[in-house]
């Protein structure tokens, strides 16, 4: 019991909360960037431009089927070889954005495809161009449907930030390791706290997502 009280001292907790803030920041920046990238890629794939859409589709499939850990490693250790170098936080965001935009591209495309065909046919026969149809008719309807999957992608990004421990990003998991490395008695309390903090963060996020989703439907 004493170990627990010592492990949850304010110094340790503040250290963990700072890590949590790093986690949230990295995940948030990545999800915003990949939302933009993913929308562009998803629309290109949807638009069926000869060769381009096919190439983008292949790229999306390749990235989606690789482990994120590999992409993080690659951006941090391999890209400097070809002259692209990021800081630790930069390469985490870069890797997560690359990975996540491929995921979101598929969600965007799925969302646009799921809008009933009559909508785009109606728009086109009323004289709107392809771009206008997409912008005014299809995307607004698609984005509404996409909120739950995007929130769940955000949750998985928060969880995946822990993988950046391997390149020493000072987020929550890494900081917990630092704490229990100093005092092995604090291993169990630290793991429990880590699990608790991640759980609270992600559970609240997915609940917020559900609330937004319900509001949008009504």
């Amino acid at each position, binding site marked *: 019991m004493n170990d627990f009280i010592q492990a949850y001292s304010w110094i340790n907790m503040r250290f963990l909360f700072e890590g949590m803030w790093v986690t949230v920041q990295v995940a948030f920046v990545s999800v915003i960037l990949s939302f933009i990238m993913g929308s562009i890629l998803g629309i290109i794939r949807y638009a069926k431009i000869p060769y381009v859409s096919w190439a983008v589709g292949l790229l999306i499939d390749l990235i989606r089927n690789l482990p994120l850990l590999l992409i993080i490693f690659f951006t941090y250790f391999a890209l400097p070889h070809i002259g692209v170098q990021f800081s630790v936080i930069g390469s985490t965001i870069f890797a997560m954005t690359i990975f996540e935009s491929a995921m979101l591209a598929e969600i965007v495309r799925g969302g646009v495809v799921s809008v009933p065909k009559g909508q785009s046919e109606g728009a086109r026969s009323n004289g709107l161009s392809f771009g206008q149809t997409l912008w005014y008719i299809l995307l607004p309807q698609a984005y509404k449907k996409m909120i739950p999957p995007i929130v769940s992608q955000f949750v998985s990004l928060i969880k995946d930030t822990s993988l950046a421990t391997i390149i020493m990003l000072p987020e929550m998991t890494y900081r917990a390791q630092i704490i229990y490395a100093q005092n092995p008695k604090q291993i169990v309390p630290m793991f429990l706290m880590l699990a608790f903090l*991640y759980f609270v963060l992600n559970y609240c996020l997915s609940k917020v997502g559900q609330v937004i989703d319900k509001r949008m439907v009504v």
Partner: protein
Amino acid sequence: MMHLISMYGVDFLTGFGWTLLSSVIALVGSLILGTLFAIIEVIPRPVPHYIARLYIEVLRNIPLLVITMFFYIVVSGIFKINGFVSGTIGLTLYTSAFIAETVKAGIYAVPTGQYEGGRANGLSWWETMRMIVLPQAFKYVIPPLGNQFVNLVKNSSVLAFVAGFDLMYQANQISQTTFDTFNPYIIVGILYLVITLPISYYMRYLEDKLAREG
């Protein structure tokens, strides 16, 4: 790159084997656990329902890395398990939560008339589940389960954190001995794609087929 393949080909293939083994074990384990918890969740009683919900929500919202490290650092002190075993247990538990959600969605996708018909014909709750609802549920569930398997293979790279001999671990080892931090990761990436790409394309084909059938 050819030099790497001829020198370390065996290591890459060993890693490939361990990754595949871990993924298959975790898939079987998480299918069993996931289906079990999905069934527990749909039992029309509050206590089992909330137990299953707790299990699913907790495992779904904690990073796989934290679960795996817990088994590698804490549990391995009590039971003697190595990195591969703790990684595979972590993978199994983590994936089982997602599979439980998938299977549950499949169960709810079966029209209620099927369940009511089964009960009205005198089958017990469990008989209705086993003989009527679950077989139909699995039809809807197969494409998402395939995608879970793809995720499983990708997530198995977490074994690299706990010395689980998998592809990612081998890539790190090889890049540390050869000081080549570029090519090993390319080769390992290709090997991951060898497993995951065919599965995801096949699942997309199945999804389309299921959508066409209505």
